[in-house]
């Protein structure tokens, strides 16, 4: 438990992450606790110590149980469900296709991780479980990434969480060049038809139907999707605002703190400072790029299929990263045509991307778990 040079490097990295969280506002709600947890564990490794016959465990050991046992991510999904409006998706269910296409990044990254592991670089190889955990970074969805990694490769939680949240914060920088490269001026200028209004009844039925279908079709996604939909049902029902509010505020905040510091605390020097981490960082970026490209390319397909009614820019929002990716679609679209408001259209793929990555998570867990 003595601090070696790697701990000091990690403390430096933690300080850089704290700087990025505070000054650049990179997903600060999670990067700040993650970075602080990383700093603490490298200053004082005993804070993650397991209990022994004679001594209690460290504080973070106990708080970490919620990550290890897979409790925190579904509860965060409960809160996210309670803040999410699936209206734009219900109004235009074809958005689901874009939310599916943007998961391409996940599966290509899996292949990438296996490939990199075979390059023969010393200490740089990944088991299939590790490759699956890295791949899920492409889902652009923090709790899903942590849920999958805690099941398949808990030893990689630190670098994967840091990569996932960092790239989510970088979405406004990563996506636009890809979006512009893959689309024509004409495609980007498409003004989409107004979404139809969605009735309260449809909004209430949506979470119930999604829960039933996904749980039956893909049981390994049931916990995540079920809690997301419970939160959404509490929201849309309108009769339990008391608990819906607590789920999306206090409960989620408490768990965010515990999850953040303890996920960060898995990043001790020996684990983090390895060629694997560099691999994860490269693969994570690829995952985001492939996901964006997948969404945009499928958007182009829909542009053709609908004879120009769909703006392919909304495809990139399918990676999730709610609501930033949808905002990026809006912004890139407006650059071409200042009167073009894609935000609500992009929210459909955006929220369907959350469901899409949970489904992809179910696939990975069921094959590799």
């Amino acid at each position, binding site marked *: 438990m003595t601090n070696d040079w790697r701990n000091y490097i990690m403390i430096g990295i933690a300080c850089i992450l704290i700087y990025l969280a505070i000054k650049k506002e990179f997903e600060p709600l999670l990067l700040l606790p993650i970075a602080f947890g990383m700093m603490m564990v490298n200053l004082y490794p005993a804070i993650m110590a397991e209990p022994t016959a004679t001594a209690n465990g460290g504080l973070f050991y106990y708080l970490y149980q919620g990550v290890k046992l897979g409790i925190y991510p579904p509860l965060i999904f409960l809160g996210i469900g309670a803040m999410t409006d699936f209206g734009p998706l*219900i109004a235009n*269910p*074809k958005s*689901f*296709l874009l*939310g*599916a*296409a943007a*998961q*391409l990044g*996940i*599966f*290509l990254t*899996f*292949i990438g991780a*296996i*490939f990199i592991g*075979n390059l023969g670089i010393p200490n740089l190889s990944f*088991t*299939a479980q590790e490759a*699956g955990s890295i*791949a899920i970074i492409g889902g652009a969805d923090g709790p899903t990434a942590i849920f999958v990694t805690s099941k398949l490769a808990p030893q990689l939680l630190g670098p994967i969480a840091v990569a996932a949240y960092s790239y989510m914060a970088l979405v406004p920088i990563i996506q636009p060049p890809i979006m512009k490269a893959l689309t024509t001026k004409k495609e980007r200028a498409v*003004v989409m*038809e*107004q979404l*139809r209004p*969605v*009735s309260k*009844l*449809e909004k209430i*039925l*949506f979470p119930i*139907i*999604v829960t039933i*279908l*996904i749980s039956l*079709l*893909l049981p390994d996604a049931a916990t995540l999707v079920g809690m997301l939909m419970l939160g959404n049902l509490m929201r849309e029902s309108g*009769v*339990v605002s*008391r608990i819906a509010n607590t789920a999306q505020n206090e409960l989620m905040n408490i768990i965010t703190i515990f999850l953040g510091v303890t996920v960060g605390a898995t990043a001790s020097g020996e684990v983090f400072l390895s060629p694997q981490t560099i691999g994860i960082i490269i693969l994570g970026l690829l995952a985001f790029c492939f996901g964006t490209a997948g969404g945009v390319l499928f958007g182009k397909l829909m542009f053709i299929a609908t004879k120009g009614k769909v703006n392919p820019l909304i495809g990139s929002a399918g990676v999730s990263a709610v*609501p930033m990716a949808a*905002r990026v679609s*809006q912004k890139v679209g407006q650059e071409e045509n200042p*009167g073009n*408001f*894609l*935000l*609500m259209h992009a929210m459909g793929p955006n929220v*369907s991307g959350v*469901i*899409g990555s949970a*489904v*992809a998570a*179910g*696939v*990975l867990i069921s*094959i590799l778990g």
Partner: protein
Amino acid sequence: MDPQNEALLSLTILLTGLVVVFAVLIFLILIINVYGNIIYKVTQKRHKGKDKTEDVRAPVSAPEPAPIEVEEGIPGEVVAAISAAVYMTCGDSAPVIRSVKRAATNPRSLWGEAGRLENTRPF
């Protein structure tokens, strides 16, 4: 794991993954389309008479542009969304948005509210 198995696994993951994700989400599209259409039509039929009169309700002129007044606490995002919605609804003749206010959130009667209260203290 030898490279050959790895390649096989990679292919399995890629194909199974994409197929399952698309299949599940396409299935959702079908279901939502079905029930969404049913509900939408039922609702439309019910409101038919009303809708005609409501259609003319949209404002048609915007005398002079002015800075948008936005009620405190409404995120800019929402303003953008509202702008977009208005723009699309009204096309070229869209009025400039000058004021965004929350709709009154509690139009129920007091006793209705008390009835709700009763259900929010159920223990």
